[in-house]
């Protein structure tokens, strides 16, 4: 439903009535992407030695990494940029002026997104494309074709199935690739995807179709973590559980900045340009007021805010958890805090 609304934004961009499925050889896919390079900016995961996988605009398709490892930062950064100019202010003939920051025009293909990240974009749409519409976010969304990659081997910190997702989920995707022997099975969900991918490849044969359905089933079973989020956390708002679980927290921004759904930001005026910059609830500065009063003074309140925003407040407002179970905040936490464990072990009722 949400997906449909989202894609309807641009006229040419509707969901197909029936998914198209294709098979494409690996070298053909790379050839196709190469041919896109002149009209599109192609963004994809790239392996940097000893540092891991990063999404970057690719200069050469050779750099594209479509393996099992997950990118460290989610592709969120191309939609909700870590810092983005919103407007300029200045003087013209002695009078103050304000002017919109120009929006980038180039169309782009973002390849290699995992189903969890694409779902994260759908959740971000609820915030940035709702009552108040954020034009640069929407522009970034409209200009992008999302070509996902189904997860071949979920990480041990993944828990997307507990968040109503799946390692092969199609929500938020224009196209989804499944890596199979000697190539990719391509599922096309939207006009945008059809426009880009329908010309190549062939219909998959029966064997490949079987492989695909087996693939889909098997991948979900590989997710080790499975838990149920309590329906309403508010009875335990005051519980000392939060004191206990937040103890290891360092109040750094790793979990929020690497989260595909965390979207809190601040507005900074630097040199008469207003920027929207990343911010996160873990920092004590986040809610510190000029008077010196801080409504969330310790890591307990701040960590609780993060958990409640994801698993209580957002659900109450938008009907879904603000979490896609990608496991980044668990993998990259400098002290290995595990939000899935913390949420699933949360006491029920107002226990002290």
């Amino acid at each position, binding site marked *: 439903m949400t997906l449909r609304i989202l894609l309807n934004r641009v006229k040419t961009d509707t969901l197909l009535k029936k998914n198209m499925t294709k098979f494409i050889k690996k070298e053909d896919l790379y050839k196709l992407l190469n041919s896109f390079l002149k009209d599109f900016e192609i963004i994809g995961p790239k392996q940097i030695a000893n540092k891991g996988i990063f999404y970057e605009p690719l200069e050469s398709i050779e750099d594209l990494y479509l393996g099992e490892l997950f990118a460290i930062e989610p592709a969120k950064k191309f939609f909700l940029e870590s810092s983005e100019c919103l407007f300029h202010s200045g003087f013209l003939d002695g009078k103050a002026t304000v002017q919109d920051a120009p929006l980038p025009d180039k169309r782009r293909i973002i390849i290699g997104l995992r189903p969890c990240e694409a779902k994260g974009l759908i959740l971000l749409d609820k915030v940035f494309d709702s009552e108040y519409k954020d034009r640069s976010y929407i522009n970034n969304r409209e200009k992008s074709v999302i070509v996902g990659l189904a997860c071949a081997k979920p990480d041990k910190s993944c828990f997307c199935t507990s968040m109503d997702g799946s390692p092969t989920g199609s929500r938020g995707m224009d196209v989804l690739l499944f890596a199979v022997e000697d190539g990719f099975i391509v599922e096309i969900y939207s006009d945008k995807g059809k426009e880009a991918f329908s010309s190549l490849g062939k219909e998959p044969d029966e064997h490949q179709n079987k492989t695909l359905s087996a693939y889909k089933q098997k991948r979900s079973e590989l997710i080790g973590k499975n838990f149920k989020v309590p329906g309403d956390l508010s009875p335990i708002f005051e519980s000392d559980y939060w004191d206990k679980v937040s103890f290891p927290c*360092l109040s750094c921004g790793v979990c929020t900045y690497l989260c595909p759904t965390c979207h809190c930001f601040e507005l900074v005026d630097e040199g008469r340009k207003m920027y929207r910059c990343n911010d996160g609830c873990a920092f004590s500065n986040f809610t510190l007021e000029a008077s010196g009063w801080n409504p969330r003074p310790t890591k307990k309140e701040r960590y609780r805010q993060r958990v409640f925003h994801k698993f209580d407040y957002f659900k109450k407002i938008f009907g879904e958890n603000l979490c896609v179970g990608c496991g980044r905040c668990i993998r990259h936490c400098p002290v290995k805090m595990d939000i899935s464990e913390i949420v699933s072990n949360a006491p029920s009722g107002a226990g002290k």
Partner: protein
Amino acid sequence: MIEELRNKARELLKTKQVEAVIGYQRASDGLSAIPCVIRSEEEAGRLIWDAACVYNLCGYLKDFRAKKLGIVAKACDVRAMIVLISENQLNRDDVFIIGMECCGVVDEKRARVSGRDGSDISSADKCKSCASCVPLAYDCLIKEKREKAKVSEDADKDKYEPVRKLEAKSLSEKSKSWKDEFKRCIRCYACRQVCPMCYCPRCVADQFMPVWFSKAGGIEGNFSWNVARAMHLAGRCIDCGECERACPVGIPLRDINRKIEKDIKELFGYEAGMKTDAKPFLACFDKNDPEDFIK
């Protein structure tokens, strides 16, 4: 060794020598460790000790000002405490150091970025140049029962070798490679938060009159943040490597820290975290300090 540690914690809590013990417990993945605080004898069974106990726990001491605490500490962690004591951030009498003889910890970072679980990863870089597996100071020492790993064997190897290699590059090479590194910085401040020496109540990065490190586009802000962070650690960093480990985007922060450490050692003969009564490096001077760079 673990039982010995748990018994010690039980004893300390039972005899009320400490109010709590800060240590490690098993994380949810069943392999790594997560910091924990033990407040009662019954909880002491949660404590663990093995090569997964990577973190430097001294940072948590500031959550419990003026309380008597026990802390599980490796050699490198104790050096951090020594600096904290010399800077009057910590009262030696407030901590009971449970010193752990350490054979090196796993390279948690490499395990993370390569998608492995750490059990097959050799010890962290910092351990390869570690000179001692026994802490400089402790109130009790828990000895390693296993055959000692070859920690100290490599210790003679020049610790500053990587720094020298980087120094030898041309200016433009250095400029380019560091810009590439800092470009990725996401300003999550994990390096600051994880650092046992970063205890300022309000970091310069959080001040906004003026804004010292621009957050708006460009790498200037990232560059100055990373330089300022390193400068604030000059003469204080004990090379526990936590900043580099915590950095999610893999900026080689230890190279910067070690560069400063090396210069301080070579120019001023000073080494941080060796003596509790040492004056902080930048809070003292010698009339004969080198000044050949000054006109």
